[in-house]
């Protein structure tokens, strides 16, 4: 009985310690969970403010944010006019209340199956003709003509930045897209992610 009680207390103690450590790490910004949400048109995306991090440049202080977006099955649509396959994937709109949104680093990847060629899954940056995407249904990769991350605020209020990835290829394609980039905004500016 004493042993059983000891085990129970020990379990409770560890649960308490784990919760406390978790809370402390999260408060310090050393542990976080990014929950990605999707809209009807937008892929699963989230933005996170980088705690305790600012950048000063030319007399202005900026806050640093990260954006993550997942689309595990990006495809293209055949355009008879050009004979090309074109696909645009949307990752929400970043609404910055005041000042610009400037992307300062990009770790985004596209992942595609090259199993039939014996190279497993290819991981390449989203870098135009240098990215590798799968020729649909073949498990063989090839290079697109164009694959890029776009930030667009020409047709929406100036505070909004529509984020998308467009791929143009001469063949029918499939690709996974994982966005992960940092952007800066003027310090204290309200930043929200709008998903449609």
């Amino acid at each position, binding site marked *: 009985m004493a042993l059983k009680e000891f085990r129970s207390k020990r379990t409770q103690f560890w649960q308490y310690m784990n919760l406390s450590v978790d809370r402390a790490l999260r408060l310090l910004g050393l542990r976080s969970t990014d929950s990605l949400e999707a809209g009807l048109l937008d892929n699963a995306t989230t933005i996170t403010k980088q705690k305790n991090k600012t950048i000063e440049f030319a007399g202005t202080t900026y806050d640093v944010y990260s954006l993550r977006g997942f689309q595990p099955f990006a495809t293209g649509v055949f355009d008879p006019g050009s004979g090309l396959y074109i696909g645009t994937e949307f990752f929400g709109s970043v609404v910055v209340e005041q000042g*610009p949104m400037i992307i300062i680093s990009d770790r985004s990847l596209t992942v595609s199956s090259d199993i039939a060629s014996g190279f497993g899954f290819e991981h390449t940056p989203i870098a135009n003709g240098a990215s590798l995407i799968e020729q649909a249904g073949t498990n063989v990769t090839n290079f697109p003509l164009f694959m890029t991350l776009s930030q667009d605020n020409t047709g929406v209020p100036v505070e909004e930045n529509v984020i998308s990835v467009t791929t143009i290829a001469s063949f029918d394609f499939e690709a996974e897209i994982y966005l992960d980039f940092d952007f800066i905004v003027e310090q204290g500016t309200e930043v929200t992610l709008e998903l449609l």
Partner: protein
Amino acid sequence: MEEKKEVLQVVNQKETLVKTLEGQAKVEYKYAEDADFVTVMDQAIERGVVKNLDGRFPEADAGKTLEKQKVTISVTNNPFYKNRQFIFETQFKKEKLKGEGEKFQLIEEKMTKEQKQNYREFIKTERIKNAASRFGSK
């Protein structure tokens, strides 16, 4: 070099400077002696403000009576501001003309969810069109 002072501040509905705004600010005067407005200032908006060397609107022509002042803000990077023109209709007061740092408030039309969805579709269509011109027919 002397720092330029503000003539106008271009603000949003919350009276916050719209620093991301790009465009042109034009000031015109209508004299009692003339039939039409004449342009007295036309310059770019820099981070939400219109500046000149002394931070004031230009002086009226000597010997003429100023009747009206018209300020037109032409925004080039945002299609959703609807009031882009102010006309001071009443008999002009000189101190108003020389006002420093006056606020020109732009009212932004709210874009509906449907309009935003349509914009996503527009982007897709444009990129398909641009693909053809960029990479040619295959």
